[in-house]
């Protein structure tokens, strides 16, 4: 579901620390038909231009709170609302180069009424980084 809509172009940018890119970030909506608490997220996988990033390189920001994937699994009271994007930050020294990039993002949601990974959505999107 929502494979063409879950990753947003707006907001795609490098993340800087002391003027140096330390990673990049983009906005993502849920691809499931309701909002959920963060523990329902089974997996987020990000690959850009064929490079896959590890789970521990990811941070997700919902509202004004940022979580590692490990922490998100325990965030049973933090709700990611339906239709409201989270920020996905990928910690990758140097960030991405300005220009066009090919994203493959997979989101797995694990509600308890179906077997794991039934709601697994892969978005493919070409987006341009300016800075």
């Amino acid at each position, binding site marked *: 579901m929502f494979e063409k809509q879950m990753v947003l172009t707006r907001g795609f940018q490098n993340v800087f620390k002391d003027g140096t890119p330390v990673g990049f970030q983009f906005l993502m*909506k849920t691809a499931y038909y309701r909002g959920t608490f963060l523990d329902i997220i089974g997996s987020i996988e990000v690959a850009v231009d064929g490079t896959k990033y590890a789970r521990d390189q990811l941070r997700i920001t919902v509202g004004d709170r940022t979580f590692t994937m490990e922490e998100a*699994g325990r965030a049973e009271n933090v709700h990611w609302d339906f*239709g409201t994007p989270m920020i996905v930050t990928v910690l990758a020294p140097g960030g991405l180069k300005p220009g066009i990039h090919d994203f493959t993002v997979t989101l797995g949601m694990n509600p308890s009424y179906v077997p794991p990974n039934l709601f697994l959505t892969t978005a493919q999107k070409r987006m341009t980084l300016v800075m």
Partner: protein
Amino acid sequence: MKRRDFLATSGLALSASLYRGAIAAPAAKPNKTPSASKITRGVTLYSYQEEYYQHAMTLEDCLAELASIGATGVQLIAEEMVPNYPNPPQAWVDHWHEMLAKYHLTPTNLDTFVDIYLGGHRNMSLQESVDTLVGQIKLANRLGFKVVRPTTGPVETPAVELVERALPDAEKYDVRIAPEIHAPIPLQGNYIGSYLDLIHRTGTKHMGFTLDFGVFCKRLPRVMVDYWVRRGAQPAVVDYVQKAFENAEPGDKIMAAVQKIGATEGNMGLAGTSWGYGPITNTPAMLKPMAPFIYNIHGKFYEMKDDLTEYSIPYQEIIPALVDLGYSHSIDSEYEGQRWTQDVIITDSCEQVRREHVMLRRLFGEIA
């Protein structure tokens, strides 16, 4: 089915009379004219999920659309549209009630999720699951819903102990707990039997069922099949899976067979998805033992065709049966085709829901 066949089998006395002489009398006993129907029409806002997700329709836009099609019942997925779930601000709740009054709508069923496996990270204790359900009952009460539909774990597993422990609060807040009879639950089996035992053992008036019409699928939705074909499902697999569904083969057998043919994304996607319809062995007549306890219906549909029938679900058989069984609550449209077509066409949820409501009005005998 041609339009006139549809009218003939739908049992509408007026419509049928227009065609008298044009068609032979049906061999089977005709359905009763359901003009005495006490069934009301509603919509679950799940149907408008894509427009809501894209911010193309607001909650109020959804409610205004219901008013414009004469629907009287409104159903919500709590975690889809209620802000700060499960504790919306009181100002939002007040505005919700103002909008209900403005659009002459009655809340029917609040759909909630007791995610007992917490995404696979750990399992809830029984008490935690009861507390979660009770919180949802309180939310239903605040929003004016008299029925709550919780998921309670795997779709085919009854959660008798959880429901029973929440019954005192269901009574206190006057909200009926109505677990869903959703595909692929067989209508004659342990899931329904366990809950019927609970109802009869306790005599509770606050437990019953939400019925989803997906249990009556007579063939797999073609929008779903086409989706997997676009993702590479092979013709041989399409053919096999459709026949397996029609022969009521168990899901694990279908998965194993398709795995042998070729475990590609398209093939396995189709095999895995085919698990969630019917089973084909369900019939409306099987509803009799549970009919008095069905408090809400999800008028599930995947594709309303140009002839105003649903591709997979035989509404023309189901509605007269429900009238005969004395069903007197709401049928709330639940459009679920968008997820299978949104990669290739722009979704128009309102159009699909409208088509279902014309079909329902015909089957209720309101219009020809």
